[in-house]
Structures are given as C-alpha cells and as structure tokens.
C-alpha cells in the first residue's frame, strides 16, 4: 500500500476539503460527489482523508466490525455480540476507520458478498464471504470514476447507502448485515454524466478545478515533487498539521449534537430552496446538517446564516432541475438567489 499524501498539504481546493470534513464529522450527510478536471487531486484528497479519521471501537471477531453499542443485537447471527451473556458486552477493540476503494472491474459478488466458494467446495458448507460493502461499514466507500461503474453496481450501492443495510439473497444464502458508510464518488463530467436520479442521492456535490493562480500551481507541483521523492520525510514535515485537522474532526464530532440551529437559519435555508426551485426536502435537510457540521468544525455553538451560505452551493448544486437549453450554470443560480435573499 502506498503512503497517502497528507490532507493538510493539499493546496487550495477548499470546497472539496470542507465537504470531506463535513462527511467525516457527520457521516449521515449522505455522501459526497466530487466532479472535476483531471489532475486536480480528487483521489488524492479522498485517500488523504483516511489517515485523518479517528479510530473506531469494534466488536472482536465480527466480520463487519460492528459497533459494540449501537449495532448490538442488530448484527448478523454469528456476530459475537449476539452471544453475549447477561449484560456483559462482547469484547471490543480499536481499529482504523475503513476507507474502502472500489476498483472499476469489481464484480458483484465481491461488492455485496457471496457464497464462499472455497469453503463450499472443500468443506461442503455454506458460508457467507463478506464483500466490500461489509468492509466499508462505519467508514467510507470511495469510487473513482463513478460514472464509468456499471449501472447495476451503482444502483445497488445507492440502495445500500440509503438503507444502511446490505441484503444478500443469492445462491441459497440469505444474509442481512449492517453496511452504513459514506459514499464518495469522483468523476470527470467529460466521461459521461451521472443519471440525475443518482446524482441527487449524494448529499453534497463539489466541483474542483485546477488552481488558476500561478503561485498556487507552483506550490502544488513543488509539494507533490517533494512527496514523490521522499514520502516519509514529507509526511513527517506535515505531521503536526495533520494532527490539528484530526483533532478538529474529533472535537467537531463531540460537539455536533449540541450545536443549535435557530429557526431563523432553518427558514433561510427553506427560502433559498424555494427560490431556486430545488425538488423535495432533501436540499433543506442537507443544508442544515452540513451547516451544523461546519459550525461544529469551527467550534461554534450555533449555526448562523454564514454557515448556510458556505454550504448551500455544495448541498444544492446537483438538485436543480435543468433543461437542456438552460443558460446559466447551477452555481450562478444559487449565487443569485443567495444574493437576493441574504444580501450581497
């Protein structure tokens, strides 16, 4: 496994970094879709995030590393947490939060899990072999070039991401196991669009562009070059910055539930969604959750209109109805609506 480039050393790309931090703070945000130019560091950022995520507590011996508290009794039948005696919890351990990469070319049996062929052929027993969805439980599932993934796999992923549960009915197996993960997709719009009904399943959507500023670009190249030459030394140089971001995530998670969202802010979010004609209530809810996560990340006690303004574009961008002849891009529409509602 290659050493990942440090998250804090990524130059610019504030939108993408913020969206990933929001997802790290509130895993219920509904996933992040990153669209962008080639060579703008999409995959780098997602892989870098893995190193920052705080570890989690998992039941020892559980194939789904389930949470000994919240998953108790809801995991599969052979999970040790089901066999606990009296009030004693099954023993648990600390392990890294999984960030699972779903490679293109993965077959369905590896994604959802399937009958363990080896076990069946040699021992004559049916046994479920967990797939990538199981491995990603309580963590992140990353798909680069999501628009190139086969349709039937994408449908399946979205379904599981929405329900938080993977239901496998194949080859005489019937298995149900928890699979709660943050879905992160990245793609290049040139390679083909995502279907709209798929797109609005993602909570946040960010567009990344290569930096336009020469000094930023020089910095990108310098850092990348330094990293490629000596990853270990580069990592050591950024260790303290990384620790700061890691601590910020932990603090934000702890504070999240206590962050207040005044009615005025809720109303502002609703008015914004109405003004731009975003379908459904998902837009408002996502704005609220994301704004709360940003407030938590910044150590504030309550959500303000400023937070809403920061997250509105990434929460709404992909939810606007657009005809093929629409003039302005989604961003321009959101900006205009925000300027009208909240003042410039």
């Amino acid at each position: 496994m290659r050493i990942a480039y440090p998250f804090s050393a990524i130059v610019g790309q504030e939108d993408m970094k913020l969206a990933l931090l929001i997802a790290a703070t509130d895993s219920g945000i509904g996933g992040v879709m990153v669209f962008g130019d080639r060579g703008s560091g999409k995959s780098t950022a997602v892989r870098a995030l893995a190193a920052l995520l705080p570890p989690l507590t998992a039941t020892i011996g559980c194939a789904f590393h389930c949470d000994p508290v919240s998953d108790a009794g809801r995991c599969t039948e052979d999970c040790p947490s089901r066999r606990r005696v009296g009030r004693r919890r099954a023993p648990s351990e600390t392990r890294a939060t999984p960030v699972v990469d779903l490679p293109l070319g993965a077959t369905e049996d590896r994604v959802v899990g399937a009958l363990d062929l080896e076990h069946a052929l040699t021992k004559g027993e049916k046994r479920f072999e967990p797939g990538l969805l199981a491995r990603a439980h309580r963590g992140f599932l990353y798909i680069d070039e999501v628009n190139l993934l086969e349709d039937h796999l994408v449908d399946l992923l979205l379904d599981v991401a929405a329900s938080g549960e993977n239901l496998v009915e194949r080859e005489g197996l019937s298995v149900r196991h928890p699979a709660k993960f943050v879905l992160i997709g990245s793609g290049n719009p040139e390679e083909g669009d995502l279907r709209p009904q798929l797109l609005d399943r993602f909570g946040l959507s960010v567009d990344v562009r290569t930096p336009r500023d020469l000094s930023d670009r020089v910095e990108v190249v310098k850092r990348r070059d330094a990293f490629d030459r000596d990853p270990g030394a580069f990592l050591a140089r950024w260790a303290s910055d990384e620790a700061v971001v890691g601590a910020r995530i932990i603090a934000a998670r702890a504070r999240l539930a206590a962050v207040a969202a005044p009615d005025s802010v809720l109303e502002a979010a609703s008015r914004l969604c109405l003004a731009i004609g975003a379908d459904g209530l998902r837009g408002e809810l996502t704005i609220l959750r994301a704004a709360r996560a940003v407030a938590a990340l910044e150590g504030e006690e309550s959500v303000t209109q400023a937070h809403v303004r920061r997250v509105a574009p990434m929460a709404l961008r992909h939810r606007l109805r657009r005809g093929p002849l629409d003039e302005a891009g989604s961003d321009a529409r959101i900006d205009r609506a925000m300027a009208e509602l909240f003042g410039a």
Partner: protein
Amino acid sequence: MGAAPSATPLGGPDDASLAAALFAIDPIGLSGISARGGPSPARDAWTAMARGLWPASTPVRRLPPGIEDERLLGGMDLGASLAAGRPVIQRGVLAESDGGLVLIPMAERLSDGCGARLAAALDDGEVRIERDGLAVRLPARFGVIALDEGVAADERPPNALLERLAFRVDFDSCECGPASGPAPDGRAVAAARRRLARVAPAGDDLIEALCQAAELLGLGSARAPLMAMAAARAHAALAGRRRIVAEDVAVAARLVLAPRALTVPAEMAPEEAEAPPEPPHDDHDETLAAADPAERTEMPTDAELVIAAVRAALPEGLLTGPGLEGRAPPPRRAGPSGAGAAAKSARRGTPAGARSGPLRPGDRLNLVETLRAATPWQKLRGGSSTGRVQVRKQDFRIRRFVRRTESTTLFVVDASGSTAFQRLAEAKGAVELMLAKAYVSRAHVALIAFRGAGASVLLPPTRSLARARRQLSELPGGGGTPLAAGIDAALVLASAEVARGRTALSVFLTDGRANIGRDGASGRAAAEADALAAAARLRQAGLPSVFLDTSQRPRPDGDRFAQAMGGRYAPLPYADADAILGLVAGGGRAC
C-alpha cells in the same frame, strides 16, 4: 543559454527517439508514450527501437483494445482452482507486465472504462482485484506505449490514459519521418537509468518556469508540469549531468508540454487567428511582470527559454489551419463501451454481470458464478462422494453484455437567403447522399431547417427515406440565418434521441453567418454570440456533430462554430460525395 552540447541531436524526427529514450530511463515517472499514426514502416521501426532501449528481459505484453476485465485485471484460474481445491489467481495483462511494458495497438479503440482501469494501475503501481471471490492486490508498475491509429481528431485513446502518458509523438505529421539522427543507444539509456536517482531535484526557478509555461499553454492539470519535470530529470541523466539545467527543462517542455498545448501564448497568435478558449493576452504579460521583481534575475530567462522551446515546437497548424490537433479537443468518440446508448445483448460488448437461464448457442458461460450456484446443492446431488462437482442446467450463469444501439442522424440545414440558391441545392444533394447511406445502415434520420425567425423540425426521427427526401425537396429558401435557433433545435431533438437510448449525430449544413439572435432580433454580433453559446451547450451535452461549411469561400467562422460545438469541420466545396460520407460515417460511428 549556454548549456553543454546535448548528447542527442534535437531535430524534429529525432524527438520521437528522444522521447523513447527518456521513457526507457524513467518509465514510472513518465508512464508512457502515445504514438499517433497508422501502421507505417517509420512507426514500426520506432516501436522496435523503443522496445530495444529496455533490457532484453523486460516483459512486454500486448493489450488488445477489446480486452475483457478477466484478462486485463485478472481473475480466478478455474482449472487450477478446482485442481488445488482453493482459489488460484490468474494474473491479468497488467500484473504480468509488472516491471515492463504494455503495448496497446489501436489504442483509439480502447473504451473509457478500460482507460480508467489502466489509469488507476498507473497511479497506484498495482492492480486491485475484487473479482470472482478474490480480493488481492498485485504489483503492476509498467510503462505504456499506446499506438493511436485514429484518423479523425475525436478518435484517440481515452483521456484518462492520455493525460497520464508523458509524451505524444505523431507519425502522421511530416515532422516525424524516419529518424535521421543516430538512434539512442541502449547502453547509454541503461547508464542513464542508473544515474537517474542521483540527479539533484529541480530548483524552484525551473519548477516555476515549467508551471508558467503550462499555464500559458492552457494546461490545467498538475500532471503536465510534474511529468515535464520527470522528463527534465531523465534528460539530465542521459546527458550525464548530476543537476537539471535549463536545457533539460527546455527539452522537457518541448516534448511534454507543447504537444498538449490548448491555447497559444499571446504574441504568437496571428491577428486573424480565432480566439483561444482562455485569452492569454494579459495573463502572459502580468505573470511575467509579476514574477520579475520578486524573483532572481535568471528566473525570467529560464521561463522565457522554456516558453521559447514550447513555441518552437508548436505545430504550425495550431495557428492557422483548421487542424484540430492540439486545440481544445472535441469530446472523444468513445470506444466500444463509451457513454451513451447501451442495450443488453447476449453476445458482445462490455460485460454487465451474469444472468441465469438456458444456455443458447453463442452464449458465454460465467464459470465462477455457475460453480457458485452449483455448490450449495453438491451434497444433495451426491457430488462430494464422487469427487466431482455436479452442475445442472439450472446452475448455468450466462454472461451479460452491454452493446451500443441504434443511431440517429440529424440534418440541420440552413435554408436562409445567405445560402445561395445553388449552394442550397448542393447541400440538399449532400443530404440525399447521406440519407441513402443512413438507409443502408438502418439508421434513423431527422431533418431540421432554419430560416427567417426560427428553426423547425421538418421531419422527426424516422427510417422512412422517402419522407425525408420529399421534405427535403420541398424545403424553401430565403430569409435571415437564425443559427442559434437551429443549434438549439438540434440539441433538443438529439437529447431526446439519446434519452430514447439511441446515439445522435447532428450534421450542420450552413455557412455559419448567423444574423438572427435567439430572441428573433437581427444583428450579427448578438446572433453570433447566441450561436456560439448554443454550440457550446451542444458540446457540453456530449452530443457529436459535424459542421459542413456551405459558404462559397470558407471563412474561419465555420471552423469556429465547429470547434465550439466540438464537432468536425469540413468545407462543402472541397468535399466530394465520398468525402462527406466518410466524414459523417466516421462521426456517427456507433461503436
């Protein structure tokens, strides 16, 4: 810059050789070469030469463009697995090429999906297999030589792959004939490979020079300057230097940056040249001026040197002719499994899972899935006692494939007064020719005409050749040229066709002299702006198009629209019937 004389002469034809040498020195940093041009002795000689620069023991694998995941990435070796009683991995081409070279003939036929898999392996230096019950990572550090035999501008290897290959050589352009200079020497390359690690990293001023050159050329990706740096390092190693000097950077800029150029630095663009996508006019002066006082005095010199090197290497057609190479490329006409219409078909195309059902002739069995389906029943069937796996008909799992489907060709005909009567007749003749062709290939055709205040769909998509022909002959001429309305109408109709699961090619026959805006008001400037915006949307929607210029004397306007819509451009006067057919058939190539 008074640098030591280079080890290799730097002539046009020799750049291909030099690129091959640098690539062999640092295959991991440079990833590969895309060599464009049909099969020719020059190309074959170059390929053999490039191969000869690598150690004799290097694994070289050919990767056919239609390769399936099972062979590309790897999967389960079923025979061995059954014999051993445990899963045995069969390595794919990428893993087999570890430490070596992947040669891709007909790389323009590679699907986007396959390109993305290659790109992922190039980025990670390994292949990740999550297939057939296997979950493994295999090392796959390889270099790529992509033989791009595309003819049209939109026939090229997948962008994801192209972006990661450092060099592009072109055997079609006259500059790249057979190498005249001495071929690079395998021993010198081997020595340089050993020296590479000892070359000191590039100084900040050189990095800045490369970034600046990349920016001037409209290259957004950070990979371009990074690969140029790797090329500079390899060039320094080849020249026996311990440190990268300005000359190395200049060579790297010429070989890596110039072939990717999307915009032309300001002072190079002739007066009449069409505006590049990002006007670099002020940019250039500002960046140089801004850098000047702050940096050391050599900085501008290096930057200028790099930019001069790039300028010298830019193809001439970039500034004048309608050559599409190097400018904002049209959306790639994807290979066999590109985005767009796809339908389930049993026999060919890209794999899309497996289904159960009877095995008909021509169907292909998915063995792993079939075995999986059979396993739970083995005890009942008494398979374990005989030591053989008992497979029944109902266990069969058949591979499903996705294949591209029907296509629609939209003819968008300019019937305005500016298109002279005779030209309109010629345009009609051209359309009739194409209609006949469409009939043969069982494609759907549609007809849109624009004149006066707007555009109208004369013929919704149909297969009826007779109807199309009648509508065409009745098409009246005269009035203004609402080009924007015509493009809009094509966009709406083409989008609808795509939604229906077909591919849609829009063929515009117009002189491009728009003078009616979208709001119906006349006025050349506004009309042109509207038309350009409409064309850009067509491009954005990923809809392919062909622009046939019907004006008496082709002017840059037509080419500009063709570019804006990402379509192919051809002036009608110079195109005979067969040429038109070839153009449209190529553009509408369904797979």
